[in-house]
């Protein structure tokens, strides 16, 4: 696959220069040792049109091979921006995939803020300095927020109403704001992919840990429809965004929805209904004691709808999820059962 030519409305910029000498594309991946980063680096390694993969993280990606060049950059350092623009210019990076976000809430909220909010700022400034043509950023549909007044399917135009006081959402919201600002830069393609919660046999995040419990807490009397995207589809979406030019924001979701109780039952777990006023007061304490996976800002997602509409990604990106929500749950479950009886060990990724 050669460079997409559909971008003809934009000036060709320095595309010729951006190609490396061997003629392939140079793709930089920040957060390269995260789940998405690891898999994306592996995928880009296999792609013959990519000549080099510039992996930026604090740990080298496990999947890096011949084409990958790893740079250790800590986004929480003030020098990150200068370092990044140096790297991007030296490697003449054409496409930047920004995946350096936390997949699950962290107790180190100051560090998380530096990494996600300020880190995104560093990355995007460096991208502007190095004149990078395309930036693809990871975001999540969780940022729409769970609210009883949500329509059943949230489109990309819907305001992001997640709780900004919770650092996990607040930092990502700020990152989206940064991205919006960056998108106004002329001659750039800015793509934001908002993935639904990712589920699959190898991924490890808040949702998989929630469903991995023997006894899964649910809010008494509430059974919202939920939606997942399979890990394979999520990675495929990023590959698609790298290969094609699709500026804008896209929801990356699996087809179909399921009531949360059905998901818990398909996962073979026991749902324990907890009255939500009690849950709200206890979760804060349990979170501080590091006994639960998320702070109480996650509880609305167990009560209300937060389901996004993937129609735009289908129409404009040509993204076709291979797994429905239900299939993603079943795929996760089949791996999780083996993990339960210690017949399958956790992947390092």
């Amino acid at each position, binding site marked *: 696959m050669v460079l997409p030519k559909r971008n003809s409305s934009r000036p060709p910029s320095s595309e010729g220069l951006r190609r490396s000498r061997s003629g392939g594309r140079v793709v930089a991946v920040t957060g390269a040792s995260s789940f998405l980063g690891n898999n994306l680096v592996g995928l880009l390694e296999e792609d013959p049109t990519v000549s080099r993969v510039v992996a930026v993280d604090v740990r080298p990606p*496990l999947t890096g091979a011949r084409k990958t060049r790893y740079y250790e950059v800590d986004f929480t350092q003030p020098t990150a921006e200068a370092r990044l623009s140096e790297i991007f210019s030296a490697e003449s990076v054409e496409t930047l995939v920004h995946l350096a976000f936390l997949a699950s809430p962290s107790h180190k909220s100051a560090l998380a803020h530096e990494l996600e909010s300020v880190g995104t700022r560093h990355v995007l400034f460096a991208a502007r300095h190095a004149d990078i043509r395309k930036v693809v950023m990871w975001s999540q549909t969780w940022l729409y927020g769970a609210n009883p007044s949500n329509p059943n399917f949230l489109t990309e135009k819907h305001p992001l109403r997640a709780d900004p006081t919770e650092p996990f959402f607040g930092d990502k919201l700020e990152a989206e704001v940064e991205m919006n600002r960056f998108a106004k830069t002329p001659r750039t393609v800015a793509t934001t992919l908002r993935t639904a919660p990712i589920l699959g046999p190898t991924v490890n995040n808040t949702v998989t840990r929630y469903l991995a419990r*023997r006894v899964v807490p649910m809010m008494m009397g509430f059974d919202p429809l939920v939606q997942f995207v399979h890990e394979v589809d999520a990675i495929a979406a990023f590959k698609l965004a790298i290969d094609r030019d699709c500026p804008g924001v896209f929801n990356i979701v699996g087809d179909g929805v399921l009531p949360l109780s059905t998901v818990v039952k398909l996962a073979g777990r026991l749902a324990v209904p907890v009255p939500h006023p009690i849950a709200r007061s206890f979760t804060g304490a349990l979170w501080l004691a590091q006994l639960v996976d998320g702070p109480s800002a996650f509880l609305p997602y167990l009560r209300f709808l937060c389901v996004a509409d993937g129609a735009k990604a289908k129409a404009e990106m040509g993204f076709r999820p291979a797994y429905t929500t239900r*299939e993603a749950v079943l795929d996760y479950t089949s791996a999780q059962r083996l993990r339960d009886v210690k017949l399958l060990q956790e992947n390092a990724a």
Partner: protein
Amino acid sequence: MKSKPKTAAAGPKKTAAAPAKKTAAKSRAKVAPKVAPRPASAARRKKVPSLLAGTRPRASEPPASEPPPSVQLGEASPPRIEETGSRVSTTDRASSPQVVAQMRELEAQLDRLIERASHPDLSELDEEDVDEAPAPAPAPAPEVRARAPEEEEPAPLSELPVPSGPGREPLSIPYARPSGPLPSQVAPVSERAVFDTARELLSTDFYLRKWGRLAMRNRSEEVDDFGYDPIYDEKVRPALDFLYTKYFRIEASGVDRIPAAGRCLLVANHSGTVPLDGVMIKTAVRREHPAHRHVRWLTEDFIYHFPYLGGAMNRLGAVRACQENAERLLANDELVAVFPEGVKGIGKLFAQRYRLQRFGRGGFIKLGLRTSTPIVPVAVVGAEETNPLLFRIEHLAKIVGLPYVPVTPTFPLLGPAGLLPAPTKWKMIFGEPIDFSSYGPEAADDELLVGKLAERVRANIQGMLDREIGSRKSVFFG
């Protein structure tokens, strides 16, 4: 030498889509000697190392180094299953029965494992030929991921000729415990230990899973975009039919004015402190309409704030009322019932019964204009007397998340039982369809016109109500 037939038994069982687990497990001892053919295909042989890789860190195939998901992605790159098996994989998109079949298979394998664990004599046997131990659960991650090929497996397996001597050798290699000192060095966790863990954990997990399966009997595994659950609907149907025929003795007229297919908006008066009219309109159309169409009705937000109500209503076909949802439903050519009065309709005091409230801001008219949908006005008579509302307590209700706390002759007095609707006699009149499509979709932006059309529909329904109430002799007997 029991092990060989036993692993063989696992093969043919796999071919059956859903083996009866109990019988399979019980008759395993009997089956074992009988089953001679041993479909030790290359696929099966090769699956094992990757399973062992989980338990032995330094097994031949390191599992973690490669990102499994990357495999299915590339259009060009061959799916991973090519590595683990000789089968051709077309992992595009397995339909649900295939997935179910695979789940069943996985379950059967786990059951076999449990069966083994619960038999003391068999666990002794483990020590003799441990090589067999991992065999019952040959479902490592890569195999799980590639679902589609599983269904293609049976045919080739059964057709495979019984492998001859050389074919047997490699099968035992991956799990054979070599006679030398190797295993103790290589595997820090012996298979025996893994097996013990498996026995412990599976015993609880097994029942939890059974519990889960039991819990699924009342619900579908798949719901539509708005959460409608056909199996749940089926379960509740007798109760709704009872309400329809015996309790409210509903007489519906003009149901056949609803088109047999295509999008249509039913606009009705809203009533009852406990709004049953949506469910009853749905039941009426299902029972009386020649095409037995399925009605989706739009409900107020507050039921989603309130425990239990939202989930149950969703499963029966209710959808939260908002422009986006309604447009999506109509785009799917559904039959949608709306109550433009909204919460004000439910909260009508007894003295105001059958006096239609303001029809919102004419959202349903905009909807009808934009999607050029015919509108069928519906008058529901009788529902407004089921829970005669005397007062509304509004400030208290804010705390509970309700629009108001109703006070009826029975409600706070008799506790929750006071909310039971009175057995009034209901009548439902479906009016002539009104077609606004001549105005064109642009008219939806004309607020004045929208208001006028909304008023026309309101007057239409009010007229039907007045006519019906005028001819009614008794609230309870019609």
